[in-house]
Each structure stands twice: as structure tokens, then as C-alpha cells.
């Protein structure tokens, strides 16, 4: 059985390689299909020194054939060289990593919030089908799925920061204060509430709807009747037998939504001036700092592939049937 799991992991890893290759090829094609000189796509609209441009031209091997150029580019990416930003005078990879922490904090909080609240709402409404709670969850989920996150962010800011003055509207920390210790974390927490709420809504809606329908499905199965017939306490039946089976599709969908989570994070960060990768993306568009745009795309695409892989592996561990296919 363990051997089967090992083989499955190897099989999935093997499938990842062509995807990573595909992402890099797509990036390469974009650089070359962009109107004008591909060097422009790698330098952006920022005055770069002439020597750098010349060297870049040689590095790219523009005089050589496309496959050779692709090999060059592959080698660069494999070495972690995602280009150089002349607007910031630093390698792109360093700039992105520096901002990653803030994005992971925001996205992670929103993801957790969506998981806990969404699953809880889904369970409640599946236990009381067609009740008031159920209808309220359905309506809330529909609204959550349709509202654009960046508009929701602006509304939250209008109400809770501008109107009521309860929470800070911008950034990740208070600029004027020099907090230390616990106050420091509380300050970040206060800044985090509104963006995390805005970002989590869509995923909360998806999780609530999905948990509800898969709980209803699981609770109707024969093993639930068996569990009840054995005289197990109802709570144990619901959580241990029902929820454990119902969570599988929720885990999958949450894993597959990581790309959307990053996209939503970019929009929400822009609204709240949250100093993450998304805000960096927004600023880089206005300064036409193309190397950073390209770098962020590659990093996010690889992150999505890894997240999908981890989801599949988690699924294989949770659901033994997968391995026997």
C-alpha cells in the first residue's frame, strides 16, 4: 500500500515537469510575440544603461534560432534568474521574495477564514435543509460569488475606515507609531482584518455551497445509517463519518483555487495599499517595469502548479481509492 502511494507520487511528479516546461515556453513566447523588440519586454520603459541592453541582446542570442534562444531562457529561469529591474536596480527575484511575506499573510488568513467559516456554514445548512439558516447561507453564497473583491474592499473601507473610523484604511502598519512586542502584532492584525475579509468572501461562498451539497450527499449514504444504527452519538456520526467524507471535494476545490486566491489578493492589495506582490504588480504596470510583470507571472504559475500537486497528494492520502486507479 505504501509502495502504491510512492508510485502515485512519482507519477504525479512526472506529470508536473511538462507543465513547468509549458509555463516557461508560454512566458518565452509572450516575450517574443510582444510588439517591438523582445529586449524592450525585458527592460521595460525604464532607461537602462546601453551596456546592459547590449549584454542582454547577447544573452538572449537574438541572432540564433528560436529553439536555441528558448534553451538559453530555460537555463536562466532554472538558475533562478528572472531578470533585472532597472526601475528598482535589483534582481527581480529578490524584489518578489521581499513582497511574498505580506501576500502570504493576507492570502493565508483569507484562505483559513474561508475554510473555517465556509465549512461551518455549509455543515449548519446541510443539517437544517430548507431552514432559515440554509436559505441565508444560499443567498450569502450567491452574493459572495458575484461581488467583485476589489469593490467589496472599497465598500468595507468606506464603511469601517472612512465612515466609522474603526479600522485603519491603508497599509500593513501604522506609519507614525513605532510599536514593539505584542502591540506590533496587534497593529498588523488590525490592518489585516478588512483586506482579509474582502479577499475571503468568494472562497467562503464556494466552500459553503460545496460543503452543503457534499454533506447532504454523504449524510444520505448507507454508512451513515449504519453508524446511527450502531448507536454512535449523533455528533460523532456527523463529524467523523459525514464530514470526513464530505470534505474531500472541498479540499480539492480549495487547492485548485490557489490561482484565483493570488489574483484576488493582487486586487485587494491594490485597494488597501497592502505591501505584497499584488501591489508590486499594480505599481509595476504603471511604471512599465516589464521584467517584474514577467517574474511575477512565472512565480505565481509555479506556485499554482505546486499547489495543485500538493492538493492531489493530499487527496491521495485522504482517499485511498485514488491510488488504486
Amino acid at each position, binding site marked *: 500500500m505504501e509502495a502504491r502511494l510512492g508510485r502515485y507520487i512519482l507519477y504525479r511528479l512526472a506529470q508536473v515537469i*511538462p*507543465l513547468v516546461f*509549458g*509555463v516557461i515556453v*508560454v512566458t518565452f513566447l*509572450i516575450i517574443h510575440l*510582444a*510588439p517591438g523588440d523582445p529586449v524592450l*519586454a525585458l527592460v521595460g520603459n525604464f532607461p537602462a544603461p546601453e551596456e546592459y541592453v547590449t549584454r542582454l541582446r547577447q544573452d538572449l542570442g537574438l541572432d540564433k534560432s528560436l529553439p536555441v534562444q528558448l534553451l538559453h531562457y530555460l537555463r536562466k529561469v532554472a538558475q533562478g534568474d528572472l531578470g533585472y529591474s532597472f526601475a528598482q536596480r535589483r534582481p527581480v527575484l529578490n524584489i518578489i521574495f521581499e513582497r511574498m511575506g505580506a501576500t502570504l499573510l493576507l492570502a493565508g488568513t483569507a484562505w483559513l477564514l474561508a475554510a473555517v467559516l465556509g465549512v461551518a456554514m455549509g455543515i449548519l445548512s446541510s443539517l437544517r*435543509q430548507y431552514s432559515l439558516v440554509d436559505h441565508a447561507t444560499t443567498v450569502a*453564497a*450567491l*452574493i459572495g*460569488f*458575484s*461581488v*467583485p473583491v*476589489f*469593490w467589496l474592499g*472599497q*465598500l468595507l*473601507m*468606506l464603511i469601517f475606515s*472612512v465612515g466609522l473610523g474603526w479600522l485603519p*484604511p491603508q497599509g500593513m502598519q501604522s506609519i507614525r507609531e513605532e510599536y514593539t512586542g505584542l502591540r506590533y502584532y496587534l497593529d498588523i492584525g488590525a490592518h489585516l482584518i478588512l483586506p482579509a475579509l474582502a479577499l475571503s468572501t468568494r472562497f467562503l*461562498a*464556494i466552500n459553503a*455551497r*460545496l460543503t452543503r*451539497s457534499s454533506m*447532504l450527499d454523504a449524510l444520505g449514504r448507507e454508512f451513515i445509517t449504519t453508524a446511527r444504527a450502531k448507536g454512535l452519538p449523533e455528533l460523532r456520526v456527523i463529524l467523523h463519518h459525514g464530514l470526513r467524507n464530505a470534505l474531500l*471535494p472541498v479540499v480539492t*476545490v480549495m487547492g485548485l483555487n490557489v*490561482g*484565483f486566491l*493570488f*489574483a484576488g489578493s*493582487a*486586487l485587494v492589495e*491594490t*485597494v488597501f495599499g497592502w505591501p505584497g506582490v499584488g501591489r508590486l*504588480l*499594480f505599481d509595476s*504596470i*504603471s511604471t*512599465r517595469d*516589464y521584467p517584474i*510583470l*514577467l517574474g*511575477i*507571472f512565472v512565480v*505565481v*504559475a509555479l506556485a*499554482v*502548479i505546486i499547489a*495543485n500537486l500538493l492538493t492531489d497528494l493530499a487527496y491521495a492520502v485522504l482517499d485511498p481509492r485514488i491510488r488504486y486507479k
Partner: protein
Amino acid sequence: MLFSTRASVTSDTPQGGQLAGAEDPGIHEKGGWGTDRAVGRRLRVFWRRFSRSRSAVLGLGVVFFFTLVTLVATWVAPHDPTALIAQPFISPGPRYPLGTDNLGRDVLSGVVYGARVSLAVGFLAAATSTLIGVIVGAISGYLGGVTDALLMRLTELFQVLPRFFLALLVVALAGPGIGKIVFVIAILSWPPMARLVRAEFLSLREREFVEAARALGVATPTIIFRDILPNALPSVIVAGSLDIAQAILLEAGLSFFGLGDPNLTSWGGMLNNALAFLRTAWWMPTFPGLGIFLTVLGFNLLGDGLNDALNPRLRSR
């Protein structure tokens, strides 16, 4: 059904193909839709099922309303949305119902014209991606074998590419323009449709009517598009209407990032412009965003209703 639609229909379950014909075996007749009278009867059955759901009718109403606004925008909008017609930052009142923005442009006119961009991009992008998805899915599902394997690998690649970031990158490099935006959204949105259509074809191609057509020597393209496709249409229509909602959200996101068509007033662009003036003018972000929200909600409700009416077997609990 909204969220489970994709998950359940796109999975390769064989039930996908039996949806529409469940109560009405006539639908599987060769050639699909039959005589005029049969079409009329089918439409009446469809409408009876569809109108049973209040939310579906509400969705249709919202979509109809915004489509109407789009068509008559020139007459309904009180002003040119780009013209500076009054003092900046006038709050909503009798003269300017939704107020004016930081340059003294009429917000109501902007919201009316913004509907045009959102709906045009939504319809065109969804139609294009549906077309690509149907062709890829039909060929993949009907032919199977190596063709299927290759096309599905390509579909997987497109599915893992982060749509929003790739769209931003392409539009930033290629320069903004509504045609490019439609193209980029379409080219990044077809994979789920392809998988859905493929799953339908996998099950439909084994049916007797297809076998009969093959035995009669009907050409493969004819079998694919004349015999099988009409039976897969209900699922395609549902997924397509939900795709419109997603395309509208994606376009709004691009415009919000400042990559919308600079010559057109769009809801996302208005929200981008409002970013700097949240403290001064609450009406600047509120109304364009409400436009996006209602339109997307409308298409989602419509898609849900269509799903219940066209695919009764898959109806949500």
C-alpha cells in the same frame, strides 16, 4: 448548483450525456431539434421549468435590463461620459443623480456607458471561448486516442496558467484595446468548456443513433456537429452563461489595474479612478461597482436557472 455545476459536469461521469433527453426521448433523434412544432413544444416545456424558479426569472430580468441599457445608452445617458460638464465632486442629487467625479464628469452617464463595455466584453469573450472549447472538446471526445491525449495535455496547461496574471501581462505588453482584451480573456477561458464538451461526447458517441449514422456512412464532421453536438447543447448553454459572468469580472479586474481600453468608460476603470478619492466621494466607487455586482449576479442566477431547466437530472438538492 452554481458552484457544483462545473465540478460535477466537467468530471468525466457518463451521466453528463443523458441529461437533456431524460424526460424527452425525442431529443436524441437524428438531427437534434426536429420540426417547428416540436421546437415550440420544447420551448414551452423549457419556459415552464425555467419560470418555476423566482431567482432564475430575476436573473433573466437583470440581464435583460442591462442589455437594454446597453442598446439605448446614447439616449438614456444624460451626458457624454468623458465630458467635463460640472464642478468636481458634486454629491448625488436631483441634478446629477449619481454625482460627479474628480474631473466633473457625470457618474450616471459613466455607469450607463460602462454597461456597454462590460456586456460587450462578456458576450464576445464568452462566445469566443465557448467556440474554442466546443471545437477542442468535440474533437477530443469523439476521436479519442492520441488526439485526445494531446489536446487534453494542452487543456491542462491552459488550465494551470494563472489567468488574471497572464491577461495582465499580455495586455500590458501588447497595449490596451477592447479587441485585445476580448481575445485574451477568450484564449484563457476555454479549458473548462472543452472538458465539459469532451465528457458529453465521450458518452454520446457510444449511443445507438451515432452508431447508426456511422453505419450509414455519414462523414465524421457531420456526425460531430449535426448529430452529437445538439445533444450536448444544454450543458454548453449553461456553462456559457456562467462564463459571461466570469469574463465580466476579469475585464473589470483588468480595467481596475489600469489596463482597460483608454478610449472607453468602463466600470473597472471608474473603480480604479475612484481609488484616490474614497474619502472625498463615496459615490465614485459605489455605483460602478454596483453595476458589476448586479450584472455578474444576474448572469449567475440565469445560469443556475438554465441549468435547472435544461438539465433536470443535475438539479441541486
